Every structure is written in structure tokens, then in C-alpha cells.
């Protein structure tokens, strides 16, 4: 066992008033390197010890300001540079929306950073042991006594004088505290190469593990949670069929249910002869209006007057109230819906045949609303 050195002289007192008085006297004598230990924070101790205001506040300020900058940069980079999305028509970098985020990051930086700074720089942790630990003095001041400990490396430290001072102040328990030099350090441990190496290794390990988890592991069985399956997935290559297509063309000579092939391809005259099989019943009109509003109204307008809602992103179509279209048969309009016309795309796949006829019923009603027949007015 190595040689033990004197760390400090300690004295115990019974009441908070006594400790405040003792502290005032000790600091009056000019001692600088001493500490007071109490079981709970005693009001007024800071003043009695003549402690200067803590520097921790400045650290918190600097960290808080860095938090603001970090938050600002993060929100800006994410929303305006890396992944700009239009949200509610607001500018991609909408400052008010990011104030809460910036605020939280500021608080996070300031609070966590301040605690870390306090532990690492002010308390000089990590440390194997503090000389006062495990002493009877520490046991007493962490239950019901109030203690003061004057360090042996104080400039004014002279053993007899300190003991006399404590006696004068009325302490009954005065003890020296010894320590083992190997066990204790006074330096900032975190600046030691070993510790820095440890930090670097920890940093590499955690960030590496995070990277592997998020970018590799998540795509491996079983951590992908069955997200990878042998089934037809839209927009992706099929592994099952040799030609790589997931969608199959129907077997020759067959048709899918409900999909009768259109017989008048490229032949509007022939199509004109088709009669509308639907009656203008309430149900049919309703379906017609629904489908018209969904599929046709974006371009043709709710009232078929060619007042498109697409704001010029697609050429405005002509009004469907024109004499030409009014005079067309239902079959002729059916043809336009099925095949499209010039730049108007075909709506064959979106609408079933019955729905197309229903849309035409609705269109007829719209036309009649502007150009009523004699009989409608009676």
C-alpha cells in the first residue's frame, strides 16, 4: 500500500446556523481552499462562503446559442435543401413553424451540455474516488450533521491553527482526512489521451452500429419483418415470371370479367349508332354526376363550360354545350370517353361501360340546363 497523504481537516457541527457562522469565520480568516458539506442545500451558504457567481451560466449561454444555430441550420437544410416539400402552400423554409423545433434543440443543447460541462470540467469527473468518500465525515454530513473541510493545500493551512479555529467555533468532532495519491486525481481526466481514445472508440462504435442497423440490418432477413415478399409489387420487377413483368396479358381468346372489348376502335360513325342502355333514373343520375365530377370536371368544369381547374397546366377543352356536342348521339360521346380525342386521354380503364353511360346522362342534364327544350319549360 502506498503512502497516505493528508487531504484536509474536517469539523462537524449540529445546526445550520452553526455551519453558516463557522463558514463566515473560515472565509474571514482568508482560507480559499475549503468546502462545506450539508445534507441538504442550506440557504445563504453561497454568501457565507463568498463564492463568486458560477461560470456555468456562460457555458449554458454559449451552448444555448449553438443550439439555436444548430436548430436553424438543421430545419433549413432538411426543409429547404435536402427534402423540400410544399406544405399547405407555405414557403419551404417557413420560419415560424421551426421556432418550436429550434426552441427544443436550444433547450436540449443548453441543459444536457451544461450538465456534462459541470460533471467533466467543474467536478473533474470521471474520478476513481474523492478523498472525502467513505469517511465518517461524509457519512455524518449526508445524514444529520453539517461539516466543513479545509484542504491541506490551502496557502494558509497550518495544522494546529486549523484545529484551534474549529475548536473555537465549537465543533466537537475534528478529524483529519488522508488519501491515497494513486486513487485520486486533480486534473481534468477527460483531456488524458486514454480517455479521448475511449471517446473516439465509443463514437465510432455507436455511429457505426447505428449506420449498420438503419442501412443494412433493416434489409436483412429476419429484421426486415417480411417487407421483402415474392409477390407482384407495383413498379417493380417480378422475380417469378421469366420476362420480369408482374402484370400478365390475358390468355389469347379470353376476356376479363366485365370488360367487353370495344368494337368500334377508330370508328366514331359506327359508335354513334349505339343507344344509351340506361334510363335517367335517380340512381343512374347520381352515379353519373359522381363520376363526371371525379373524372371529367377537372378539365371540363363542373358545368361542362370548359372552365378547367388546372390553371393552364393542361389546355382548356371546348365547352360541351356547343351545338356540335349537343347534336351528337350518346354513342358518339361514348366513343370520345372510350378512345379519347386528340389531346384528351381515354377514360376506358377508369370507367366501366355502365358508368360511361351514366356520365353521358349527367352531361345531357347539364346541356339541357343551358339549352332547355320547349317541353322542359312546360
Amino acid at each position: 500500500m502506498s503512502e497516505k497523504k493528508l487531504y484536509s481537516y474536517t469539523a462537524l457541527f449540529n445546526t445550520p446556523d452553526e455551519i453558516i457562522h463557522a463558514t463566515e469565520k473560515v472565509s474571514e480568516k482568508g482560507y480559499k481552499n475549503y468546502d462545506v458539506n450539508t445534507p441538504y442545500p442550506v440557504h445563504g451558504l453561497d454568501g457565507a462562503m463568498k463564492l463568486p457567481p458560477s461560470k456555468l451560466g456562460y457555458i449554458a449561454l454559449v451552448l444555448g446559442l449553438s443550439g439555436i444555430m444548430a436548430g436553424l441550420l438543421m430545419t433549413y437544410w432538411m426543409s429547404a435543401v435536402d427534402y423540400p416539400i410544399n406544405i399547405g402552400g407555405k414557403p419551404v423554409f417557413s420560419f415560424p413553424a421551426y421556432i418550436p423545433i429550434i426552441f427544443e434543440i436550444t433547450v436540449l443543447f443548453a441543459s444536457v451540455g451544461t450538465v456534462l460541462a459541470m460533471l467533466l470540467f467543474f467536478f473533474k469527473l470521471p474520478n476513481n474516488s474523492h478523498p472525502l468518500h467513505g469517511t465518517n465525515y461524509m457519512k455524518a454530513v449526508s445524514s444529520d450533521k453539517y461539516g466543513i473541510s479545509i484542504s491541506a493545500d490551502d496557502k494558509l493551512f497550518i495544522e494546529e491553527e486549523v484545529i484551534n479555529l474549529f475548536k473555537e467555533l465549537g465543533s466537537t468532532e475534528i478529524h483529519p482526512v488522508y488519501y491515497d495519491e494513486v486513487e485520486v486525481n486533480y486534473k481534468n481526466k477527460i483531456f488524458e489521451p486514454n480517455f479521448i481514445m475511449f471517446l473516439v472508440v465509443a463514437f465510432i462504435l455507436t455511429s457505426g452500429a447505428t449506420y449498420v442497423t438503419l442501412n443494412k440490418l433493416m434489409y436483412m432477413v429476419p429484421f426486415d419483418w417480411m417487407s421483402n415478399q415474392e409477390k407482384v409489387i407495383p413498379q417493380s420487377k417480378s422475380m417469378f415470371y421469366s420476362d420480369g413483368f408482374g402484370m400478365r396479358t390475358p390468355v389469347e381468346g379470353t376476356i376479363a370479367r366485365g370488360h367487353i372489348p370495344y368494337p368500334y376502335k377508330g370508328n366514331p360513325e359506327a359508335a354513334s349508332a349505339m343507344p344509351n342502355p340506361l334510363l335517367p333514373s335517380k340512381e343512374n343520375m347520381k352515379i353519373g354526376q359522381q363520376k363526371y365530377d371525379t373524372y371529367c370536371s377537372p378539365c371540363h368544369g363542373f358545368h361542362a363550360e370548359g372552365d378547367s381547374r388546372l390553371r393552364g397546366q393542361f389546355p382548356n377543352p371546348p365547352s360541351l354545350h356547343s351545338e356540335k356536342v349537343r347534336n351528337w348521339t350518346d354513342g358518339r360521346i361514348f366513343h370520345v370517353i372510350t378512345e379519347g380525342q386528340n389531346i384528351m386521354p381515354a377514360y376506358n380503364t377508369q370507367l366501366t361501360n355502365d358508368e360511361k353511360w351514366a356520365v353521358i346522362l349527367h352531361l345531357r342534364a347539364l346541356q339541357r340546363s343551358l339549352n332547355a327544350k320547349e317541353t322542359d319549360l312546360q
Partner: protein
Amino acid sequence: MSSSLTNFGYQGKELPVKVRNIGLALFLIGLVLAVFGYFVEPVRSMFNNIILLTFIVSIGLGSLFFVALEYVSGAIWSVPFRRVMEFFAALLLIVPFIALPLLFNLHDIFHWTHPEVMKTDKLLAGKAPYLNEEFFIVRFLVFAALWILFYFAITLTSKKQDITKETKLTRRNIKISAVFIPVFALTVSFTAIDWLMTLEPHWFSTIYGVYYFSGTVLAALAAGTYAIVNLNEKGYLLKGLDKDHYYSLGALLFAFINFWAYIAFSQFLLIWYANLPEETIWFLQRWNGSWKYISILLIIVQFVVPYFGLLSQPSKKDGKKLKFFALWILAAHYIDLYWLAMPTFSKEGFVLGWIELAYPILAVGIVVLVFSLKSKKNNFVAIGDPKLKRGIEFKL
């Protein structure tokens, strides 16, 4: 024990007559200008009168809230100067008089007082059960009566204790305060809604009451801090009030500066984000023409400057700084109320004429006058309070 010991050596100094005379002079100047303004531009004057009313309610009601808060929370540090806040609470007594001219001119101020509007406007018709003159006046009178009732209940008990020194009076005040606080919460919200929010009867914001509350407490704290630091420096209070007390006052001020900004921003953020025309109109109005400058000014004056001014620990312990920022915050609160009320009157941009200056003069006059009259023949310190000794010895 000798009586000087139980009184903690309280001297019982009175404020110099000068203070009262200054208050009286300001009051008279403001009053004459305000009356004159009423005959020149009645509607404009009435809008200013609303600002005055809500300003005085802020200080008076906020102070009573502070006193009640001390009682229910069992606070110790504020006992040595609680009486100062009680003096400010006396402003509640004159609130009805300030409201009187308004009650006779409701038609010029509030759109919703016109029955034909209430019938034709579908939105307003739905609010008619709440927004009608009779109920409005009844509400105000009930609120004012409650405030005055609680003012007397709390302060008279506190005053009685100066002589009897009974602990049971503290206990009684704790009970009264516990009842007062919910009453305060409701009346302060509805006062804000009635006098300020219904200026724009179509618009609504559910956080409006809290917004006004934050300003209320801030204004009361500022008035109290200014008076307490001043009185303490001039020796009207007990010896031993120190940096620790100052720090606590400053910290509360600082906290409520943040609270105000937090609430103001919350209100703004939700309205801005949802972007609904019926809600954004209120902020657009305050961004219209030169109102934009007042909106920006408000952020700087009521948040940024006092925030950095009171951020550091030493500045909260510095009496000079505290006094400066206390006055600053009072002015900021006045601008805040101006910003809330005036855009309804002048939509194109802010107006600033002699009428707008007359009312703050009147406000300062009223506060100084009421404070000096109230403090006459009253102790500046609640010398009978059982917590007083601990209050003076309070250390952080």
C-alpha cells in the same frame, strides 16, 4: 418582548407629499385632456379609454392575484413587501369609474351592440345570447363587484393582523385567496374577451384570455418591482431586504416575459399554420399599413430587450436595472393593449396624437395617486405577519 422588537423596528415613514402632488397633477392633466378629447374625437377617445381600463385592471387585479398567490403557496420571500402589492390592488376600486364613460358609449365601440347587425349577420346572431348589452353590463358589474369584494376581504384581514398579530388571520386569508384564484382566472379571461376580443366580434381565439393574463401578471409584477425597489432604497421597508429578494422579483419578471412571449407565439403559430381566413384576418389587420411596425416593435419591446436585459443573474440583483426594466415592461404592456384594441378603430395604420398621449398620462396619474393615498396611514410592511421574520431572512 418590547413592541419595537415585534415590529422589527418598522419606522412607519410616510411618502412625501410631493409624490401625491405629482400623481394629482398628472391625473388632472390627463383627465382634462381626456375630457377635452372626448368632445373632439369621442370614438377615438373611447378606444383609448378601453386601453386605460384594461391597463388599470392589469395592475390592480394582477397585484391582488400576486397577494393571493403568496397566501395559497405559503411563499415567504415576498412577505416583507406584500403590502406594496396590496396598495396597488386598490386600483380595483376605481375600475368602475374608468369603465363608466365606456358603458355609455358602447354603441360607438362595439359593432355587436347594433341590433340590426345582430339580426342580419348569421355568425353574430349565433353569439347573440352572450353578446348583448344587458348581459355585457351585468357581467362587468358582477366582475367589478367580485374584485372589490375580494380586495377588501384580503387586505382588511391583512391590515387587521398588523395590530392583532394573530396567525389565524393568515389562515383566513389563505382560504379567501384559494376562493379568489379561480374567480380571478375566470374574470380575467372574460374581461379580456369582453373588452378586447369582442371589438372584432367575428374573430375568436381560445388562448386570448391567457394572453391577457400573461400581460396582467407582468404589468402587476413590474409596477410592484418598481415600487418595492424604490421604497426599499429610500428606507420605507424593513432593513435586510437584499439581493436575494431582488433576484426573486427579477426572476419572476423574467419568467413572465417568457410566458408572455410563449403565449403570444402560440396564438400566432396556430393561426398562421392553419391559415384559415376567418382567423388570420386578425393578424393581417395588425400587419396592415403602419401597424406592421407596431407588431414588430411589440416583439422587440416586450420580449427581446427585457429578455436579454434580465437574462444574467447579476442583472436580476441590480436595483437600478430592475427599476429600469420594470418601467420598460409597464410601457410595453401599454403598447400591447394599444396593439390589441386600436387596430379596430384605425384600420389603415396606427394613430398617435395627443389623445394617445393623454391617456398614458392619466394612467400614471391614477396609479401614483391611488398608491400614495392608499399608503397614507397604512403600514408599508405587514408587521403582524407570522412569516415576516423568515421573509426578511430569506436567502436563495
